[in-house]
């Protein structure tokens, strides 16, 4: 945990924010130009190696960014160790489940690729 507190956590938060910003901008521009892609296009994107890597990277960035942000809020506002532990455990579980869910869906999508 010590390795992911001061400067490293701060750097991870900024780098993940950069990735999320670029991904959101790219998606926005795509939707503006091409319109909603529909299920077959999403499926093709997820089955492409670059697409699945990007989805995984964006999900990881979202979870890491969310973790550092939520941890900062907890450190600022919750001063009782028991409360901190409970809330941080809840946040970690929720973010872990989000990542796991994306991983499972992506694996299933790739497994059923023609």
């Amino acid at each position, binding site marked *: 945990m010590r390795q992911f*507190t*001061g*400067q490293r*956590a*701060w*750097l991870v938060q900024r780098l993940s924010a950069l990735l999320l910003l670029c991904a959101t901008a790219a998606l926005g521009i795509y939707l503006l130009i091409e319109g909603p892609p529909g299920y077959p296009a999403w499926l093709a994107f997820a089955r492409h190696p670059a697409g699945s890597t990007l989805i995984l990277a964006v999900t990881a960035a979202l979870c890491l960014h969310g973790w550092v942000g939520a941890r*900062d809020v907890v450190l*600022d506002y919750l001063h009782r160790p028991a409360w901190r532990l409970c809330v941080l455990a809840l946040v970690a579980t929720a973010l872990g489940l989000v990542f796991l869910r994306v991983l499972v869906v992506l694996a299933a999508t790739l497994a059923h690729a023609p």
Partner: protein
Amino acid sequence: MRFHIYRFDPDVDPRPRMQAYDLPDSPADRMLLDALVRLKDMDDSLSFRRSCREGVCGSDAMNINGRNGLACIQPLHALKQPVVLRPLPGFPVIRDLIVDMTQFFAHYEAVRPYLINDQPPPERERLQSPQARDSLNGLYECILCACCSGFCPSYWWNPDKFIGPAGLLQAYRFIADSRDTATAERLADLDDVYKLYRCRTIMNCTEVCPKQLSPSRAIERIRLALTKASI
């Protein structure tokens, strides 16, 4: 001129209160401190710190109409009435406008605000290039009045662990000093989730500094130095 001043004597008062004062105008009053000194003549139980009365000692830092500043360099005519005076926010109150700065100076001491150089001292002095000396401008002028730390929400939330903008400005003053040889140790000491990284870049510190310094820029530079050191 009308004043509303925070009054609290922990030995007597069950809770703080705001007391109204009406002070007849005087042509001799130029700064807020002049008016406070006259108020003190009217009511000698009113307590506040002051010393140099020219913005050098930093003793008379207080919250003036919702904004931290030094009473001695705050022009009286620029203030909206009633002038509301409170102690520095986030600091324990000793009495009226006097706050306990023990924690503040403990943080200051913790950053080792002195030159560390393990090389043998030269015969006369440790020289710097003009450029290296210029890099200290905007850092060494801090008078430790605590206006910045007292206006920083991150400092209000974690005053015992977050060093605060004043302490971090002082820390960077020695990190940036070309004559100091303890840069790596200083940076390693600051690489902590509380000491440095409680700063949320709110920048109130820079906004209220009565000496027009920029603690937020110093904090950014410490973070940059830490990032460079980690690569």
